[in-house]
């Protein structure tokens, strides 16, 4: 008996095929907005890595004879109320922003995924308990939680990261649960039950890989709001502490001089806007590429 004749089609390639992932991700090249978002993020990531080389001045050294200089040749983004070069502070602040984003993503991604998949897979009482717990966490405002954390642990970047992480995993968990409910009814899961695949095997090797694309999309979109929350905490003085050049804290200190020296608050504002927008654009594009249900 021979194989179907249709196999000689365009898929007949002798080399091993690249994974579905790579194929799908390469489609980003055809999406100008998403590509722009990705490039902006890559640029900021490079800046974060190369901050000591790129920054023209030390971000914390004060120059009181040179305060509130307007943007010009010597200081491209001007200087703040203590004479520090704003561009250098923004460049060093990139590091803080990326550290916050990466840490939060590494905490809430796996946590939300595991809770959501277990909830959806087990169903019944486990599902009810986990989802009600998720609802409770979801109703916590992250700023208020951060305030209480700051009171208990002392204000700082770490506290901000913990507060943001603890309040932003529920959306990932709900997404993973919804995704699991669809996947667990698939026939390949039924077939795996028939040949005796264990629950752990089904959860980690069959169901979880199917949830990861949408979780990545949601994480990317969530990063925009994480940046805004982190900046908000910095603005309230609950995030990174002076003199560390956190963007939110920079806006906060520039607020007082808004009329005389607009650039102190506006420059970090532009940085926050750019990164946040880049994450949104990339997230939307990833959703279009990875999730066929959102096809246009």
């Amino acid at each position, binding site marked *: *008996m021979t*194989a179907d004749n*249709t196999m000689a089609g365009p898929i007949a390639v002798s080399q091993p095929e690249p994974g579905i992932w790579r194929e799908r991700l390469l489609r980003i090249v055809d999406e100008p907005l998403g590509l722009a978002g990705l490039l902006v993020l890559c640029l900021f990531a490079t800046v974060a890595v190369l901050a000591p080389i790129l920054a023209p001045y030390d971000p914390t050294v004060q120059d009181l004879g040179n305060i509130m200089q307007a943007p010009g040749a010597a200081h491209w983004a001007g200087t703040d109320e203590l004479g520090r070069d704003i561009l250098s502070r923004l460049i060093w602040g990139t590091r803080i922003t990326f550290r916050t984003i990466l840490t939060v993503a590494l905490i809430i991604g796996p946590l939300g995924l595991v809770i959501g998949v277990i909830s959806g897979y087990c169903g019944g009482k486990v599902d009810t308990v986990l989802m009600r717990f998720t609802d409770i966490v979801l109703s916590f405002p992250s700023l208020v939680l951060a305030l209480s954390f700051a009171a208990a642990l002392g204000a700082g970047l770490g506290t901000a990261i913990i507060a943001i992480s603890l309040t932003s995993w529920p959306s990932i968990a709900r997404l993973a649960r919804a995704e699991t409910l669809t996947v667990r009814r698939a*026939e390949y899961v039924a*077939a*795996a039950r028939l*040949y005796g695949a264990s629950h752990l095997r089904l959860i980690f090797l069959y169901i979880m*890989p199917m949830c990861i694309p949408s979780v990545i999309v949601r994480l990317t979109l969530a990063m925009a709001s994480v940046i805004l929350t982190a900046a908000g905490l910095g603005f309230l003085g609950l995030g990174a502490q002076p003199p560390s050049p956190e963007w939110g804290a920079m806006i906060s200190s520039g607020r007082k001089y808004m009329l005389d020296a607009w650039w102190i608050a506006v420059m970090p504002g532009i940085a926050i806007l750019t990164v946040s927008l880049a994450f949104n654009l990339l997230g939307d594009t990833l959703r279009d590429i990875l999730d066929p249900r959102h096809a246009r």
Partner: protein
Amino acid sequence: MIKVRNIDVHFQAHHHDKHAVKSVSFSVARGECLGIVGESGCGKSTVLRSLAGLETHWTGTIGMAGRQVGQKRRRDDLPLVQMVFQDPYGSLHPRHRIGRALKEPLISMGRTADDDIVGVALEGVGLPRHFAGRFPHQLSGGQRQRVAIARALLLKPPIVLLDEPTSALDVSVQAEVLNLLSALRREMELTYVFVSHDLGVIGQMCDRLIVMRDGELIEEMTADELRGRRVKTEYARELLEKSFI
């Protein structure tokens, strides 16, 4: 090989009870192929899923290979019966390469799984060995269904359940897959239960068939009787007329 006595299946949803299978009994001899026909919703797939162990809400008795099996299967009951599903696009994990898909049953049962076993399994269903490196989406529907058949046979089950295995395929590919299934049954002395709504396919594949309607078994006949159109009930006659035109 299979003895089913008085199985009933009730589905409860929103205080509404659906009696999906009503006291159905039949038996299948070793090496025989029993067809189950009926329109969609008649309970034929539910019977099959109860046999497989996927449906656990049945009452009655099911015996296989001389022993009783329960609603929840024990681990050593699993290799008795495997199943080929209707949709060749849904029954293979989209992120597992074919080689991985074929190793999974062996790994799950704690048996040795190597590339050679996979190669032999692929050749056994008429596919080249190098397909092991491909993903399901790189295969046609017929090729996927062959992989699904190879996977069902890896644990060397004496019983294979077929849930409309060709209804999602093109007519030309259907015939090839049916021929493969017939050849495998002869070679490996398999016992089949074949669910379909297509009497033509059943007549070609099966030795005997039962007709179901609204959860009840209404007629049992041999394939010869089907071909000779010697049916007893009006409903079976209607089904016959619909499928042979």
